[in-house]
């Protein structure tokens, strides 16, 4: 209707707009192709060392250590057999199990502590809840070396050295700030009417948590758990200082490959791949929430 009333100018304007928009779209389409090629090249460059690690882990020791590399050598699982102690007899299972215990149980405790804390910081906030949030964040900025020595001496005199439970507790403290920040941002998204309804129905804190909050934020709990799991699984400094034989974790076990031992590249790559596998799986599963966890919940 408006076009019928004033056909000439609006048509002109529309035409001009269209042509300029088309030009931009064409330009940006060409730009997108260039950007796409560049992005693919850079992506491949960044992923290549990981690809090479997996490929080498599947080569025989002789083919793994050639110069130039033999990319198309036949595949074998010998590297993994060696890693699992086929000839040395040193099984990586105890460290892998220790890592699993420390990572999984610390993550469970982290979540159990973080959900009520996040509740007290968002749903029914305490006074000065932002101060509490920033206190949690600031503890994450305290480097591990800041408390390493007292934690070591404490463990030494109480016989807690080389004890996986001690490490588990420390990993809980390490991940708690991240979890509190992440869980708070998930809880803050829940409409407050839901809590009012729960309270009207006479639900207490525990019941509200169990029947209202947890079902809604379970995707958030999953993402937070995966990220805490990754950080606990990766940790080396505390593990290397506080454990030796019995409670050795997978990253500590990996440090036995630091010095070269003849032809052992396939075995090293198999070990690196096997130990990284849980993190790769957890990381890809939590991909969408990864940035939120890494930025301590500051970026969504």
């Amino acid at each position, binding site marked *: 209707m408006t076009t019928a009333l004033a056909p000439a100018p609006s048509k002109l304007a529309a035409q001009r707009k269209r042509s300029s928009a088309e030009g931009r779209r064409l330009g940006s389409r060409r730009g997108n*192709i260039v950007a796409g090629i560049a992005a693919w090249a850079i992506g491949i460059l960044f992923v290549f*060392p990981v690809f090479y*690690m997996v490929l080498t882990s599947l080569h025989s020791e002789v083919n793994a250590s050639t110069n*130039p590399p033999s990319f198309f050598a036949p595949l074998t699982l010998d590297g993994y057999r060696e890693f699992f102690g086929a000839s040395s007899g040193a099984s990586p299972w105890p460290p892998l199990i220790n890592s699993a215990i420390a990572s999984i149980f610390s993550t469970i405790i982290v979540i159990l*502590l973080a959900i009520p804390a996040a509740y007290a910081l968002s749903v029914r906030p305490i006074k000065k809840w932002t101060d509490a949030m920033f206190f949690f964040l600031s*503890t994450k900025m305290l480097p591990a070396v800041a*408390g*390493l020595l007292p934690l070591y001496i404490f463990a030494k005199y109480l016989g807690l050295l080389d004890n996986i439970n001690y490490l588990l507790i420390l990993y809980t403290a390490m991940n708690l700030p991240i979890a509190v920040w992440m869980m708070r941002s998930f809880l803050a998204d829940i409409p407050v009417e839901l809590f009012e309804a729960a309270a009207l129905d006479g639900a207490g804190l525990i019941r509200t948590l169990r029947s209202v909050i947890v079902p809604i934020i379970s995707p958030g709990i999953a993402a937070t758990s995966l990220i805490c799991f990754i950080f606990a699984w990766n940790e080396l400094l505390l593990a290397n200082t506080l454990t030796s034989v019995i409670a050795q974790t997978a990253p500590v076990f990996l440090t036995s490959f630091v010095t070269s031992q003849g032809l052992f590249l396939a075995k090293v790559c198999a070990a690196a791949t096997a130990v990284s596998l849980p993190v790769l799986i957890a990381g890809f599963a939590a991909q969408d929430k990864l940035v939120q966890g890494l930025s301590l919940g500051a*970026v969504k």
Partner: protein
Amino acid sequence: MATTTAPPLESATTRPSKKDKEPKASFSDRWLNKQGWARRVPLLPALVFIIILTQIPFLATLIISFMNWQANYPNEIAFGTLNNYVTVFTDPALRSSVFFTVLLTVTVVIVSLALGLGIALLLNRNFFGRGAVRTMMITPFLVVPVAAALLWKHAIYNPVYGLLNGILTWLGGPQPDWITDFPRLAIEVQLIWYWTPFMTLILLAGLQSRPGDILEAAAVDGANSWQTFANITMPHMRRYLELGGLLGSIYVLQTFDTVFVMTAGSLGTANLPYTVYETLYSAQDYGLASAQGVVVVVFSIAIATFLLRTVSTLFSEETR
């Protein structure tokens, strides 16, 4: 909206009486004004836990840093000395480790921020297989750091069978011993490879949170892509660059795994966290290790002060 910002203000002014004197207050008012310990209890376990395990050990570190305490000389334990700090700042080996810590942190953070921004701008375009490239970009960050360091040390940098020299053989180039010849650069490149994905993720999240209406308005007004980038994207991205830079600094400052695996602190690559570990573990000098730890904390606090400010601006925008 009101629920997240209102309660601290409201309760600060009318804390004790409101509950009893105004029984007709709306439900949400009563809900939000119920004060006292009932509200704090859910927070306490986490708070107590974190104080015991982070604040008290740090206080102990601070105290021990003023002590003469070497595990091998248990009879000479004494309190009240500044010798440890004098050693930290006068021992040339330690000065070198302070210098390398700063160099490593600055280099890795700046280079991976710049790369991350470029890659994030590419990933923000619309092209075939964008999700796949994004996944490929994340992958380096999902290799266990010790495993990544082993991978680079043995499979990439090794002078005899490493990938780099393998490629150089194809090209007919020289065969350098990368870690021995360029120890610091070798560590920096490995860490840049590891941290660029992190920066990319944060900056990509920033790019995608640009207000769409303003971008549209700019397009309607005929702004070209450079004008849009300089006047809209960069001001918006400033906070995300700060966030990435500061978080990256705090993490890179604490680098231990890579140094431990690649060089074991030799060839001038011992950074402060590694030095603390060695003073504690090999030299068993508890007083000195604590003083070194305190120096790392001072660096961290300097960075953290800025970081907290950045996070709090992002945070207040989010809760508003």
